[in-house]
């Protein structure tokens, strides 16, 4: 029970910061939306190409916006000695990790809902297999948030953090990009059993990412 309380405490802190500063709502979300619009320009707003490419474009937009959210989650820890404060709270490394990852996951999931609606409206996508879509999105989000949190803390304190995070995170989340895109494409296509197989892959990735992060986070937070 204490573990969950601690997680809620850390996640609540991050989400409260986002609610008050409005960076996620007023910068990251609009960024994701403009990427969706840019993809339409890139493909010449082709009414036949866009619906086919929609799953991949959706996940590419989510990934790009996620990079901003991850960077943001760690830049708030660097002012006012927040990192030291966090260390001094005596919270367990594992719950700190899950808390921070959970806050990113919540933000990303909200972003995905908005971008999903944008893709359906702008790219003329017919929604099918909603349950598989939601499960795929949830699993992918957890995997993405957990991986991002690990690399976020790895890159903290470095002057090049903002440029380092994308280079570290994007190759590592290849399974999320592939799995998310394929799960969405199969579900929208009506091939439900294939879609669920990709959801399984996404769940496996999420479990591994959370496990790895929980183990690695505590030593990373300590001052070397």
């Amino acid at each position, binding site marked *: 029970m204490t573990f969950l309380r601690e997680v809620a405490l850390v996640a609540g802190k991050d989400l409260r910061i986002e609610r008050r500063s409005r960076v996620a709502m007023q910068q990251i979300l609009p960024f994701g939306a403009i990427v969706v619009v840019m993809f339409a320009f890139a493909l010449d707003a082709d009414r036949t190409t866009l619906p086919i490419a929609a799953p991949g474009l959706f996940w590419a937009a989510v990934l790009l916006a996620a990079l901003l959210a991850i960077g943001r989650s760690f830049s708030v820890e660097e002012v006012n000695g927040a990192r030291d404060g966090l260390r001094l709270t005596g919270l367990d490394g594992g719950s700190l990790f899950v808390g921070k990852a959970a806050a990113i996951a919540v933000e990303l999931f909200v972003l995905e809902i908005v971008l999903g609606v944008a893709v359906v409206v702008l790219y003329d996508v017919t929604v099918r297999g909603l349950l598989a879509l939601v499960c795929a999105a949830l699993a992918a989000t957890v995997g993405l948030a957990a991986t991002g949190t*690990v*690399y976020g803390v*790895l*890159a903290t*304190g*470095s*002057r*090049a953090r903002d440029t*380092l995070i994308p*280079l*570290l995170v*994007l*190759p*590592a989340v*290849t*399974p999320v990009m*592939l*799995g998310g895109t*394929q799960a969405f494409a199969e579900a929208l296509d009506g091939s439900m059993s294939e879609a669920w197989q990709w959801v399984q*892959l996404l769940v*496996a*990735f999420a479990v*591994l990412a959370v496990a*790895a992060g929980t183990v*690695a986070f505590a*030593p*990373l937070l300590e*001052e*070397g």
Partner: protein
Amino acid sequence: MSHLTRRLFGLAVLVALAVTAVLALWVSPADAQQDDAVRLLYLHVPTAWIAYLAFFVTAIASILWLVPRTRRAEWDLLAGASAEVGVIFTGLTLVLGALWGRPVWGVWWEWDARLTTTAILFFLYLGYLALRRTGATADERGKRCAIAALIAFVDVPIVHFSVTWWQTLHQTGTVFNPEMDAEIHGSMAFTLVFSVAAFTLLYAYLVRLRLRVAELEEGLEDRALELAIAERVRTEQVVPV
């Protein structure tokens, strides 16, 4: 390793590579289907092997650094040196693969599982090298990099698995395949084995050299610190109290 043995080692590597070139270009025959393009095999396979070997060594060195009982600064340096060589050889593998793919498959690039995984591997370890270059104390850097290396190492099989699922179109592995004789014969097999051995020597030589540079760099830092302290002591003494 003394200066002389290092020189001799380097010489041995050079000779081995020269023999590989002779074997690959003149001794081994051209392929019935691929003609002379098959000779790229003797470069492509060894470079790929070195790339994987290098990242494996990085992972092992990172574990040795992380375990308190075996922790030594050298393991961190070895992990970094091996990863640097690995990234270069991964890049070479990709370029050579593209050069080979063009005449044989008709395209520079094919999105099959092994190629795609190798490309992702290249970027994963480029990120690792970038992480190594961020300023931090040696201990802090060692810890971060060791963890990053292990995460990358665990990530690779998952990436490979997902990409394999996504698409696969490559011929099956040859060198470590038990049915090797069925696919590759005589002087070709010998050339391949020889060239893998020669490149492994080259790898060992390059890592050794890179380690030496890293040690010298660290020595230089210590020396600079000593000089700065000496300078400070000298000037303080000059100032009248």
